[in-house]
């Protein structure tokens, strides 16, 4: 249903996201994991046509055969909030402080043609379903978790085909986090779930993409990728997130994530990889069906 092919995001001459390709089927939940600086947020913004000034995207992204990338704002505007919508990371600042919550939910519907009265009725229904039955409240009167649930209501109001979540629970307490994830699992259609938290992505998604340095380095069914990672970066990630027995050192990936534009040529991970070889100066392509990885010397 969503088909992304060769998505590249550039800021001037700097490539921030390179040749990202993936598909999402109807009703499928796909996770996109990576650290800060991996390009995952930019990928999401590119799909929504919300890239900041000076940043452009090329490549193709088709949602139900409708192009999302490379089309003028006028066309993307129509799709945003209606066919594809997004929930952002920071609930505290995502809502207009001078507007009542119910009005903000209704807005996304009336914007796309729903008559006022219908929008109002549906708003009440949505708010009830996410558990925040306070349409006349102002955002500052709600907690972070409540605000995020309102954001979810807004995102799902027009029954989009794809919901993109960019770290939706990172700013929330653990218990609230759980509620939010359950809601998403219950209400959302197809989901692209972006996060750096492996446990969270495992509880919601069936498939996962691992990003590093603006590229997809591994992808596949969650269970497989987490229990049997092939790319060295994924291997390091999984190892670092496991609880270690007492007395042992926490495994880490040596080095730090380079700044944009300072990634090595060839394999993006080569400068931090313990298994790097001369062949790694050639960029590996994603290979494998189902469980794919881009590495010359994968773990086996």
């Amino acid at each position, binding site marked *: 249903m969503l088909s992304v092919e060769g998505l590249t995001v550039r800021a001037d001459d700097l490539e921030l996201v390179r040749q990202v390709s993936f598909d999402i089927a109807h009703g499928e939940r796909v996770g996109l994991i990576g650290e800060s600086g991996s390009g995952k947020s930019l990928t999401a913004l590119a799909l929504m046509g919300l890239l900041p000034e000076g940043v452009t995207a090329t490549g193709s992204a088709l949602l139900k055969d409708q192009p999302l990338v490379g089309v003028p704002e006028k066309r993307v505007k129509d*799709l945003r909030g209606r066919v594809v919508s997004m929930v952002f990371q920071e609930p505290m600042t995502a*809502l207009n402080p001078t507007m009542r919550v119910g009005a903000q939910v209704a*807005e996304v519907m009336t914007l796309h043609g729903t008559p006022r009265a219908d929008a109002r009725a549906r708003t009440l229904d949505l708010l009830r379903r996410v558990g925040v039955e306070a349409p006349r409240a102002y955002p500052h009167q709600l907690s972070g978790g409540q605000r995020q649930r309102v954001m979810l209501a807004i995102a799902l109001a027009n029954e989009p085909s794809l919901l993109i979540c960019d770290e939706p629970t990172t700013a929330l307490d653990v218990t609230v986090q759980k509620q939010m994830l359950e809601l998403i699992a219950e209400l959302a259609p197809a989901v692209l779930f972006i996060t750096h938290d492996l446990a969270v992505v495992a509880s919601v998604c069936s498939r996962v993409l691992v990003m590093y340095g603006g590229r997809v380095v591994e992808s596949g069914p969650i269970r497989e990728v987490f229990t049997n990672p092939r790319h060295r970066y994924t291997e390091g990630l999984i190892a670092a997130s496991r609880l270690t027995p007492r007395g042992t050192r926490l495994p880490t990936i040596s080095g730090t994530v380079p700044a944009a534009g300072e990634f090595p040529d060839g394999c993006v991970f080569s400068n931090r990889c313990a298994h790097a070889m001369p062949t790694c100066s050639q960029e590996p392509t994603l290979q494998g069906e189902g469980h794919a990885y881009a590495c010359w010397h994968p773990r086996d």
Partner: protein
Amino acid sequence: MIWYLVRRAAVLLASTAAAGVVVFAFMALLPGDPAEVALGVNATPEALEALRRQFGTDRPALAQFLDWVGGLVTGDFGTSYVTSSPIGPQIAERFGVTLTLVLGGMAIALVVAVPAGTFAAVHHRNPLGALISAFSQVGIAVPAFLAGILLVFVFAVQAQALPSGGYVPFAEDPSLWLRSLLLPWLSLGLVQGAVLTRYVRSAVLDVMREDYLRTARAKGRGRMGALWRHGLRNAAIPVVTVLGLQLATLLIGAVVVERVFVIPGLGDLLLNGVAQRDLLLVQGVVMMLVVAVLLVNFVVDLAYAVLDPRLR
């Protein structure tokens, strides 16, 4: 909300009272005796005494103060020691003129600043926005009376299109009234507009960076649509604060502009009063101006609460 209003009203009252004390104390420091000033140096002690009794200046300061304040509350500003005419009516008459001047100036300032500031913010990266910023910088550096002189030069001296001064009441001749006020309004308005442009630009820029604008766009709004529907009300909050301050500045600017254009407003009255050492008159006018400023602040506080639900 109610509490907020009550607190603000209490502050207003307290400030007014304090201002009254300050103004009175100030004028009480004025050296010289009004009776002497009125009768001249050669007056007999008895005549002076009699006049003092008539003026009420022989009583202790506190009594005079209470008397004055009591009068103020009922709108009686007393009778001038110098001209022997009641001060209240003079102030009332002139206040209307000054008010017209100030409101007109404010209107022009807003008409200039809101579009210019918004434009400068939206285009803050390209030369056009920078140009507007530059213009507003220059505008700030020009005092209102200089702008007045410049405008008089262009429109009255060169073009001979508008009068260089004088005032015609609306009742007498509406079109002449307008013409006599046009240049003064522009002098005040353009300068204040430049100042306001900077604040509008800054407020809109701040709002442009806010997350809720991104949310609005995620809903399907375009850039301008999001700014218009969500940004404006939020940007208005800091701008309204400044408006209040600006109104006070405008009030004072009006005092000077009245001199430039020979307009019979409060400022003119004040300056004449000082020149003639008309103590009671000056007291009354200053009090009037200060109360006006305090009232404006109060109204701004109210507007603040209306615009920003977080305050209620």
